[in-house]
């Protein structure tokens, strides 16, 4: 099993705090992501975005969440056998978990290199698969966590704090 962490240093203690207290989310949104369903892919992150607008999350943070969650949703659509997006909303941050049904990321460090892609022809024809997904998620997240195993499922977690 491989694991990858990206933590913006100032959020390290808040992550520890979160893991220790394991607070219950105020609002939870769940969204099923079907394999290669590009028609509906993006709807989950759009729903999250609209909800956060209603909560009055500031525009810059909102756009970072929108980009990271959209990219991650497209990733599950394009590269996995489908999965689930669970967005947990708290009053100071959002935690989004993408759990798919495989086939797992072979080499996470390689997948984090901008431009590296394993996308097949169908995905590229749809205009995706430029190899910028994971790097883009990293760029827009305060904390990013990947747990994966080749031949098994992948869990991608994103934490973004409102400013």
């Amino acid at each position, binding site marked *: 099993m491989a694991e990858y962490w990206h933590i913006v240093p100032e959020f390290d203690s808040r992550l520890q705090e979160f893991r220790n207290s394991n607070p219950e989310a105020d609002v939870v949104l769940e969204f099923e992501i079907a394999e290669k369903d590009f028609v509906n892919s993006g709807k989950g992150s759009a729903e999250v*975005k609209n909800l956060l*607008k209603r909560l009055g999350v500031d525009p810059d943070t909102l756009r970072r969440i929108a980009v990271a969650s959209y990219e991650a949703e497209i990733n599950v659509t394009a590269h996995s056998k489908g999965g689930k997006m669970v967005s947990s909303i708290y009053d100071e941050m959002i935690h989004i978990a993408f759990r798919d049904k495989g086939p797992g990321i072979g080499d996470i460090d390689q997948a984090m290199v901008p431009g590296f892609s394993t996308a097949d022809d169908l995905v590229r024809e749809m205009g995706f698969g430029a190899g910028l997904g994971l790097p883009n998620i990293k760029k827009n997240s305060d904390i990013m966590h990947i747990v994966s195993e080749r031949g098994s499922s992948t869990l991608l977690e994103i934490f973004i704090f409102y400013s």
Partner: protein
Amino acid sequence: MNNKDQKYFHALQILADNCTGCTACVRVCPTEAIRIRNRKATIDANRCIDCGNCVEACQFHAIIPRSDGLDIIRNFHYKVAIISSSYAGQFSEDIPYSVAKQALYELGFDEVAEEAMVTDFVIRMIRDYVRQNKHIRPILSSSCPAVVRLIQVKFPSLLPNVLHQEAPMSILTRYIRERIQEEKGLVESDIGIFLIVPCVAHVTAVHQPEGTYKHLQDGAFSMGMIYGKVKEHIKKIQNNPLPIKTYEKGLTWALSGVEADMIDCEDIRALSVNGVENVMEVLSRVEDHYLDQYDYIVLRSCTNGCVGGCLNIENPFVAMSRVKKLIKEASEPDSITEQLTDLYKEGEFKVAPLAPRSIMELDKDIKNAIKKMKQINEFLIMLPGLNCSACGSPTCYALAEDIVQGRASIDDCVVLLKRHAKED
């Protein structure tokens, strides 16, 4: 036309006597600004963007576009009409465009100018702006007032992307006012400049412009309102037309697709989007940084652009075809591009940074907003999820929100009421 006590002016009026409470308007409003309460439609002035969807949806003439009465031009010594480019598409092809323009002099105007006169300059100005603001992508067009208000209301994070320069008819207004003062030795208040407009949003923009620093127009007349009188004059003058100069080449402005084609060039990639639903979808993609490959996006709330305005007479596609024909057959017009470029360099067309009109937040405080969101979800589970609008709110979600915000009650749901009646 005054209701200055309200924060936001809207060029719409509800005639309560005509309103049947049918909810047709409620269902087509892109910002969910309309509710039926006590069997009558009400518009939330903070949410309305003046797109005109409700005017077109209402079959009972209960939502009426407002514009100024033509007699207000008599308050001015020198009267100028500026016609929207879509005007040219409203007449059958046996009526030459110059005759349709001449008819406006007959209405009492001393001068008739065309939005089309500034198209050449505006294309150059937009290209210059796009090149000078390379750090912002994409730049979003600002000439459609409904789109500007839509961004203020629903996409405030995109306000910095909006082209911060005056729209074509306002640019022309600035130029004409200055020119006439010089030429005729008149003071500013002697000159009345009026727009002939295809849509509600333009009437609103004349009465409550966004971000503008200058005195612009003195009134706006609806295309539909003056059409009858114009047709009468056309009949009279058709056999003895005067040689009147026209600017067909610039009529491209009436068509959102053609505008984008003209701005598109080697280093500027332009996209054209029209129809308010499409505009909202694309703005959401822009928010996700998914359309950053475009340098400029033309956004128009009406179908095909201004030819689709709800105050127009002709179908948007027929009008578009006519305008295209005029453009194709046109000769090179006189240009005022040079004079306008000088004014542009002096910063005459700048506008103030646009401010958001935040309607989306459930509460100023995020903790309270979350509380309300939870309550909304609790009500949502109780509601039937039919989105039938019979309660007067557009969707079950909107009703749940209205209940939480104290603007409605769960008893407003007709479906639940029926279910409960059966159980009793």
